[in-house]
């Protein structure tokens, strides 16, 4: 018998299975969804997100959360955001498509910067957010925040310079090698020019013709003699041209060498700066001091804004291309989730309108009741067609309470353009420690503004702080006991400072922006430190200079001697060879006259050779006459008989 296709009794266990799933849902769905929300939000934001409890309200397609805490990625002991309760209402049709469209978001009991009971876990280092955090921290490293401390006097004695580290020594070694190469090249050139052989031939010919006349030689003999003399004059001219070419090459090489010596001297100044850096001598220029005092605290503000914007750009990309995301965590391989947004369809995530009313209280907080509005936060801005807008304002508070306003626009419909502006007025801002010095500034009631705009890859940001009743605290724990002279001076200046005005800016390509900080403190500090510590600084600088000079001067002197020696030797050989050739040529010329050959021309215009001293009618373009030392006369080939090439 052929078996039947269906087995209707199987419906019973199937129903039992579905019933089991339903019971499982009722028992565990809230917990599973809470864990999923925590895991996803932690992954997306790159910082620990905790949810106290979560309740699914199936009838209202909504969820209610309590005890939401989002840890501050830059300070894991604090929360960037917390909320006592949240109510999230979803669009049911979008949920059927597994998309999260939030039609209503209500937050109650929100807090900013609240302390965590336990520090947050570090983010998954392989995640995008963690990588972004790492990149933003690396980005911060490019801003060179100068030190403020002046070393004590005994530190100056400890400066040990490794000569190999000095640019002077390295440049001198390179130049020495170049001088050797030049010398070798000139030697080879001199050897290649047959000066001695030509002079010998001339002497032999002149000796042969000495006392001879056309009458004694006869017609044929005279013609032969004239031809011989002319040929030899031609050879002399050729050799002389070679010698002059060598002279020009030598002049060029020597000029380069002299330029090299000057470059080595310039490297000495660089080494002095290097040694000064080893001493960690501070700059007393106001911009440097501004960076030294407020650089860290300013960059901190910019760094946070950049981090959140970087996340926004990752999760709110423009366009409708398929989006790839890591799949959900499971025992099996996670794989990749690919989203396929479609025009006129629900975006994968969209908060149409969100509103949060919350009160802030506490010492670090801006007390009052606040309203935060959020609209069109979506992972597919191209579908929604509106930029994300966030605004917050203070609704009410005690009399004389601070003012607060925040506005942000993230426009990713085309090339991303993000900006945020925050203004806080009359708020008691938290204090901050000054870097590298044991002082803590309590700005008291202050006005603070932050504007950060990232359009494409171009950043333009400004942070300002104005405080009327600044207090300065000496942190003996950081100072390690008694304050040093600079610390004491700084303390006195801070104590008498009437108020504090700081302004920091960041402009240019986001990879390498220009960072500036200025404040009234650094201007006062610059003047006072210059007056008080100028002598100390000058002494330290002289010490660094002397240390470098002790190494560099020996190198420079050696180089100058070698260059001068080369110049003198080259000049001597050139003059000698050229003089002999001239003399022999004159004698040959006379011989021609005696033999009755006219019109050969006995006047030779000598070419002008640059850079070789001692030549008639020449300027000296590189070397001063007094730089030529006495002839060393050592180790020079062909120098024995004073004739080049012999």
């Amino acid at each position, binding site marked *: 018998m052929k078996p039947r296709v269906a*087995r209707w*009794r*199987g419906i019973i266990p*199937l129903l039992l299975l579905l019933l089991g799933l339903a019971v499982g849902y009722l028992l565990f769905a809230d917990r599973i969804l809470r864990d999923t929300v925590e895991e996803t939000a932690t992954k997306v934001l790159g910082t620990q997100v905790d949810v106290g409890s979560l309740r699914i309200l199936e009838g209202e397609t909504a969820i209610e959360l309590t005890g939401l805490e989002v840890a501050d990625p830059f300070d894991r002991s604090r929360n960037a955001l917390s909320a006592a309760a949240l109510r999230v209402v979803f669009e049911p049709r979008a949920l059927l*498509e*597994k*998309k999260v469209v939030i039609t209503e978001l209500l937050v109650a009991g929100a807090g900013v910067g609240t302390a965590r009971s336990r520090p947050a876990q570090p983010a998954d280092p392989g995640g995008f957010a963690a990588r972004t955090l790492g990149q933003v921290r690396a980005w911060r490293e490019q801003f060179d925040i100068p030190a403020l401390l002046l070393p004590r006097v005994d530190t100056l004695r400890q400066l040990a310079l490794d000569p190999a580290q000095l640019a002077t020594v390295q440049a001198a070694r390179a130049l020495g090698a170049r001088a050797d190469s030049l010398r070798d090249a000139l030697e080879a050139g001199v050897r290649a020019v047959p000066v001695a052989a030509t002079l010998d031939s001339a002497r032999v010919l002149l000796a042969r013709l000495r006392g001879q006349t056309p009458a004694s030689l006869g017609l044929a003999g005279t013609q032969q003699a004239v031809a011989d003399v002319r040929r030899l004059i031609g050879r002399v001219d050729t050799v002389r041209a070679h010698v002059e070419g060598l002279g020009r090459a030598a002049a060029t090489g020597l000029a380069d060498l002299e330029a090299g010596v000057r470059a080595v001297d310039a490297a000495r100044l660089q080494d002095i700066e290097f040694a000064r850096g080893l001493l960690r001598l501070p700059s007393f220029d106001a911009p440097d001091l501004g960076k030294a005092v407020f650089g860290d605290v300013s960059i901190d503000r910019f760094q946070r804004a950049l981090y959140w914007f970087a996340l926004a750009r990752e999760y709110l990309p423009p366009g409708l291309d398929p989006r790839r995301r890591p799949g959900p965590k499971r025992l099996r391989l996670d*794989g990749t989730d*690919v989203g396929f947004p479609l025009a006129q*369809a629900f975006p994968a995530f969209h908060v149409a309108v969100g509103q949060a009313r919350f009160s802030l209280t506490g010492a670090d907080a801006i007390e009052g009741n606040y309203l935060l509005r959020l609209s069109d936060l979506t992972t597919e801005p191209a579908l929604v067609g509106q930029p994300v807008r966030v605004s917050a304002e203070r609704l009410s508070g005690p009399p004389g309470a601070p003012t607060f306003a925040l506005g942000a626009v993230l426009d990713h419909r085309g090339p991303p353009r993000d900006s945020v502006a925050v203004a806080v007025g009359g708020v008691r801002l938290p204090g901050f420690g000054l870097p590298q010095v044991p002082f803590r500034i309590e700005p008291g009631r202050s006005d603070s503004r932050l504007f950060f705009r990232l359009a494409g890859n171009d950043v333009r940001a400004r942070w300002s702080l104005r405080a009327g009743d600044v207090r300065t605290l000496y942190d003996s724990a950081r100072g390690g006991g008694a304050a040093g002279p600079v610390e004491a001076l700084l303390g006195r200046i801070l104590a008498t400072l009437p108020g504090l005005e700081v302004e920091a800016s960041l402009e240019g390509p986001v990879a390498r922006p220009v960072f500036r900080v200025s404040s009234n403190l650094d201007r006062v500090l610059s003047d006072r430190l210059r007056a008080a510590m100028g002598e100390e600084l000058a002494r330290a600088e002289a010490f660094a200079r002397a240390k470098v000079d002790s190494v560099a001067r020996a190198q420079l002197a050696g180089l100058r001697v070698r260059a001068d020696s080369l110049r003198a030797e080259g000049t001597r050989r050139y003059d000698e060879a050229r003089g002999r050739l001239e003399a022999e040529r004159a004698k040959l010329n006379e011989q021609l006259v005696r033999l009755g050959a006219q019109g050969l021309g006995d006047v030779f215009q000598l070419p002008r050779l640059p850079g070789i001293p001692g030549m008639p009618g020449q300027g000296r373009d590189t070397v001063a006459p007094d730089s030529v030392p006495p002839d060393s006369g050592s180790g020079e080939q062909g120098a024995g008989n004073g004739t080049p090439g012999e």
Partner: protein
Amino acid sequence: MLTLLKLLQSLFKTLHSEGTPAQVATGVALGAAWGLTPLLNLHNLGIAAAVMVFNVSVGGAMLGWLLFTPVGFLLDPLFDLVGRRLLLASGLEDLWTRLYNVPVLPWTNFNNSVVLGSVVLWVAGLVPIWLLARWGVRRYRETWGARLEGTPLMQALKASKAYNWYRLLRPE
């Protein structure tokens, strides 16, 4: 422990006498989906319903699940590769976009590379798995099955009360 016992019972029963080799092979081929593809997905609920409602061997499905679970873990990188190729193929983008925006379908997680890759390869392997399983069951019954039938272990398994529950799902 009881679950394990029930599983063993069903497996032995399946291999020995319950259902034709084709029914057992169909069960194995369907159960292979639970082993090859990530378990907590909507399509596996559909396969569970099919195994229960259609006249196939549940024991065979259990056997398929058991056998193919390690294979699934081993082949995950291959599933991921195939799934990603398919999801990112420009010629299929319109199809995926349509399916992604149809209600309920995205809950199958078809847009996950491992899920799609494993489902596609499971479907491609259905017939070979079925043929291989049918041949294997026949060979088993002809050789080992007859010898094991009279052993005390088999008698004990058959006598167990848990077996009665399984009878609800045995092939007819």
